[in-house]
């Protein structure tokens, strides 16, 4: 027994010594981030980028990676943990469990802190509208990860388009149809439109282009209605159905995993995609780095005119993709330290480090003062990037906009596309359609949202694939209404009117 007591005392002493010593050490922050790079492990030890961050901010990062495909599940289970990581990158910021947890006080309320422009200049510089979009009951519980408002759109392989005799800019819906039909005829083994089991985005882009609302619309009487009630929604589906019939879409698209989506383009199996526009320059970059492409082979589509001459619209993003939240594992006294660090992440230096890494490891500076990777170092840089930088950009917020310094230079097509993307963002902005119900929470959506959305998207997929006709589509929509869709519409309607009244 005496021995046991002695052992216990010794243990207590070592522990207290250890904590005493820790006071001298850098402030450690645990962070949970989604992981996309799977072929190379993240170097947690001897990582020059982490060392650089520690040197600049006095913060030692301890990162927990969660595979992206099941990251949402991981967030939900982590929330049940007594000591969750101090910082969590939350990808589904409007998920019911996040909203419930925020209301219960699992995250720090940052509303007053981000208003403090003196202490946190970069966090305070964020657009108020986007902060409002991520707020819960008017309070802000996280720092948004900034994205351009009009982000979804259409891009295609312009080199293949030229080959099949389409050598002009897409200006009208008719042009788009012509382009798709020509691409469909390219070869027996290839397809025009790249589709996979995730269809909501593709359908959203094309139906909104035809004039349907973005998920939810407001009719002439000022009432909220779901997108599929709009006749334009059916027009959009018909467009896809026609393309499917002429062999422009892989007949098995519904069984293709989301993780293969990019690969279908990379292996030259399909030439057009309705998705995030910035993916165009990412694909271009991949071709330049891996296939020796030297010319611009991707093109993005700008504003398009409909048959009646009016300019078509695009689904509007909500200005963010997920948020960075601080859990109550951080004490109130330490909160400013953590916020200071997040503020640094948004500074030019922080943005460059999180998005691109550090000089001499993942990038070098050319004589014009641009960030680049020399020819002979591409392998090294790519390796370092996977091992040291990994997916640290998931912590990047870009709240005050892109401030990377020195700016990146990428030779050949990527820069052109990237510039076009930035220009398009401005050009498309007036035509972007927002989802009026986005900031609201519907109880039915919380309980049945997943299933209800599935009814709509499954029916759309079956319609495109010719498995059901218009009557079948109608039946599915009625089913949706009966299963809780009507209830959800009512709840959103009430919330919408309540917000208007305010």
């Amino acid at each position, binding site marked *: 027994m005496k021995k046991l007591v002695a052992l216990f005392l010794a243990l207590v002493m070592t522990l207290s010594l250890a904590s005493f010593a820790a006071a001298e050490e850098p402030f450690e922050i645990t962070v949970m981030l989604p992981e996309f790079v799977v072929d190379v492990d993240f170097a947690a030890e001897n990582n020059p980028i982490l060392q650089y961050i520690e040197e600049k901010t006095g913060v030692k990062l301890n990162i927990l990676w969660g595979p992206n495909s099941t990251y*949402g599940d991981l967030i*939900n*289970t982590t929330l049940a943990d007594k000591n969750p990581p101090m910082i969590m990158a939350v990808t589904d910021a409007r998920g*019911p*469990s996040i909203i419930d*947890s925020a209301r219960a006080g699992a995250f720090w309320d940052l509303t007053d802190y981000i208003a403090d422009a003196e202490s946190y200049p970069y966090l305070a510089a964020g657009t108020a509208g986007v902060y409002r979009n991520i707020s819960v009951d008017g309070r802000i519980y996280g720092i948004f990860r900034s994205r351009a408002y009009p982000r979804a759109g259409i891009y295609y392989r312009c080199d293949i388009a030229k080959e099949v005799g389409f050598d002009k800019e897409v200006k009208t819906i008719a042009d788009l149809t012509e382009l798709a039909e020509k691409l469909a005829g390219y070869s027996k083994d290839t397809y025009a439109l790249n589709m996979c089991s995730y269809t909501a985005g593709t359908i959203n882009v094309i139906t909104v282009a035809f004039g349907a609302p973005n998920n939810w619309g407001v009719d002439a009487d000022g009432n909220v209605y779901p997108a599929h009630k709009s006749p334009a929604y059916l027009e959009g589906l018909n467009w896809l159905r026609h393309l499917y019939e002429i062999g422009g879409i892989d007949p098995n698209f*519904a069984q293709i995993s989301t993780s293969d989506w990019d690969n279908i383009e990379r292996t030259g199996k399909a030439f057009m995609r309705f998705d995030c526009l910035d993916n165009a320059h990412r694909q271009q970059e991949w071709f330049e780095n891996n296939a020796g492409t030297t010319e611009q082979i991707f093109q993005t589509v700008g504003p398009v005119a409909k048959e009646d001459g009016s300019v078509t619209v695009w689904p509007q993003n909500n200005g963010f993709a997920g948020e960075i939240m601080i859990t*109550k594992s951080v004490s109130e006294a330490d909160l400013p330290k953590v916020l200071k660090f997040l503020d640094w992440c948004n500074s030019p230096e922080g943005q460059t480090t999180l998005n691109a890494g550090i000089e001499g490891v993942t990038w070098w500076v050319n004589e014009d003062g641009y960030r680049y990777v020399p020819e002979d170092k591409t392998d090294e840089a790519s390796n370092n990037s996977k091992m040291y930088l990994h997916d640290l950009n998931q912590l990047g917020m870009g709240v005050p906009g892109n401030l990377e310094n020195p700016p990146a230079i990428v030779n050949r097509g990527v820069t052109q596309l990237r510039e076009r993307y930035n220009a398009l963002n401005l050009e498309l902005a007036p035509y972007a359609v927002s989802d009026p119900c986005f900031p609201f929470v519907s109880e039915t959506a919380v309980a049945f949202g*997943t299933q209800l959305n599935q009814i709509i998207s*499954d029916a759309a997929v079956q319609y495109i694939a010719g498995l059901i006709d218009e009557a079948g589509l109608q039946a599915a929509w009625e089913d949706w209404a009966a299963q809780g869709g009507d209830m959800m519409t009512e709840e959103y309607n009430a919330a919408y009117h309540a917000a208007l009244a305010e």
Partner: protein
Amino acid sequence: MTTKAAERKKLHGTGLRYWVKLRADIKRDRWLYLLLLPGVIYFIVFKYLPLFGIVIAFENYVPYSGVLGSQWVGLKWFQYFFKFPAWVTYLTNTLILSFMNIIFYFPAPIILALMLNEMRSLRYKKLLQTLLYVPHFISIVIVVSITFVMFGPSGIVYKGTEMILGHPINYMGSPDTFRWMIIGQTIWKETGWGTIIFLAALTNVDTQLYEAAMVDGAGRLRRLWHITLPAIRSTIVLMLILRMGSMLDTGYDHLILMANPLNRKASQTLDVFVYQQGIQQGQFSYASAIGLMKSIVSVTLVVTSNKIAHLMGEQGLY
């Protein structure tokens, strides 16, 4: 039941005397009771204590507030589930899969066990048994991948049917084929492993009975019918009762792996719904409520089928 209770009274006496006797028993067989202890602790810690978590089915459980701090909502989640007709789909899908499982999968290990029992060469039998156990150890993820490679649009079976029938059958993307694929995979994976319990029961059959029957001129089928099957009848009934208890369990991993937008009509079962609500949506309370309802039905089914077994003159589960 009452006769049993009376028997116990006679054996152990009542009240105080019962406890005195029990103490004496424990003292006498203390080493045996000691051996029992780890098992009892296991059940208390891992099976009984977590039962208190059921309470979240009646709360609006938010992990941060904890089980004690979350808001009490009574039967809200139960009402929610029945509010919309979707639950009918989940229930029918679950029941159809379960019945198909009982009709097509359940007899498979019995038949296989009987076939193995008739083998003459003992060495060959042992080798075959080992080989038959292998699929059980293959992860369901792998099984589904193999299925995709074979039955998918570029697979050999898909192409084969296209050649024979002139048109392809979309095995992986239709609600009609979905259930058959699931049952097929289950049969392939678990039949061999399922034979173990029946083979064990078969070893208890007195070989003299066979010899006597042979002398009387009974053929193989007769021996099978009059000796082998009656010998394993109680095992079959026992397994069937246990199967009844998991009538509403379809598992979710297998179904989620096989599901896609084209066959979702058939793949939405209660277990899949619980997974979607609990893990994907983070609605722990709602998921627990559905899980609790499922368990109540399962217990009822076990008790009823056990009763029926008793009526049929079998020993049953207890």
